[in-house]
């Protein structure tokens, strides 16, 4: 199966790999896994007091599509408000990366990860 250039680019030069301090009250951490392929994804956001995502980091153990999906999402959420970030859909990710049908679940995982991170952030802020 051939990966698209965009997938390869994110795979070879992943953006925002790393970790944020998960005990920070402004940091939300999302952890999701796909037992089907054994992928695991951690996506974190740091939110300003005005509700804008100022930083995002990820760590993904999985295939190229999973890494690219999470890398892309960290790029997309930066500078958006939490509510705007919630509008990111797996279809957008899959389309942007030209994922083949068998890899759609990787984009679903990335969408789940950002949702989980935002839920965690809201829970911490007592909005959840």
């Amino acid at each position, binding site marked *: 199966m051939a990966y698209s250039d965009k997938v390869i680019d994110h795979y070879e030069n992943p953006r925002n790999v790393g970790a944020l301090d998960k005990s920070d009250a402004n940091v939300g*951490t999302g*952890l*999701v*896994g*796909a*037992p*089907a392929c*054994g992928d*695991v994804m*951690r996506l974190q956001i740091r939110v300003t007091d005005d509700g804008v995502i100022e930083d995002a980091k990820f*760590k993904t*153990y999985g295939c190229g599509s999973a890494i690219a999906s999470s890398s892309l999402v960290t790029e997309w959420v930066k500078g958006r408000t939490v509510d705007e970030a919630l509008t990111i859909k797996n279809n957008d990710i899959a389309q942007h990366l030209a994922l083949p049908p068998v890899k759609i*679940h990787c984009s*679903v995982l990335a969408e789940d990860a950002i949702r*989980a991170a935002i839920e965690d952030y809201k829970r911490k802020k007592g909005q959840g």
Partner: protein
Amino acid sequence: MNCWECGAPVAAMFCEGCEAIQPPDPRLDHFARLGVEHRFEQDPDALAAAHRTLQRKVHPDRFASAGDRPRRFSMAQATALNDAIRVLRDPLRRAEYMLHLRGRDVGAEGEGRVQLSPAFLMEIIELREAVDELNGPDAHTERGRMAREVAARFEGMLAELGRRLDAGDDDLDAMAQLAAQLRYLRRVIDELQVDDGPGDWT
């Protein structure tokens, strides 16, 4: 089913009347196909022996000069037997198969996806990060230590899953969770093994 050759009713790989080889019975699951008990606990040697004995009977070499149908059926029987042993000889796959027969697919995507707890996923990420960070003069020893540790945990959880399956536990969700966690642990073990060359602890 009836024998394709003589029309007598058949319930085995060969017709009792005319001894013609039959196509694989689609109603048989992997356990029934190998003639072993439907349970997790299996003697690996007995499993291998059951497969070997049956495989010998239907081996395509024996039907090389037979007609077109017996040749095709022997091939299909041999394939079905190989499919069965491939799943059953691996304890985790065997456990997953037993869950599958009860309608629970550990590898399901979408709606039926097995949800893993964030705590477990965090542990897996941390384990894999720890594996990534192994370097320096003691890396080899440390890798071996980690591999043994994770393998011991894997074996313990697998034994628990097996016990629950054999006890007829009805909590399919909990058992699917266990199986999914085992998939992740196996990944970590594989990771440690790749870097370490073949290990002797599996």
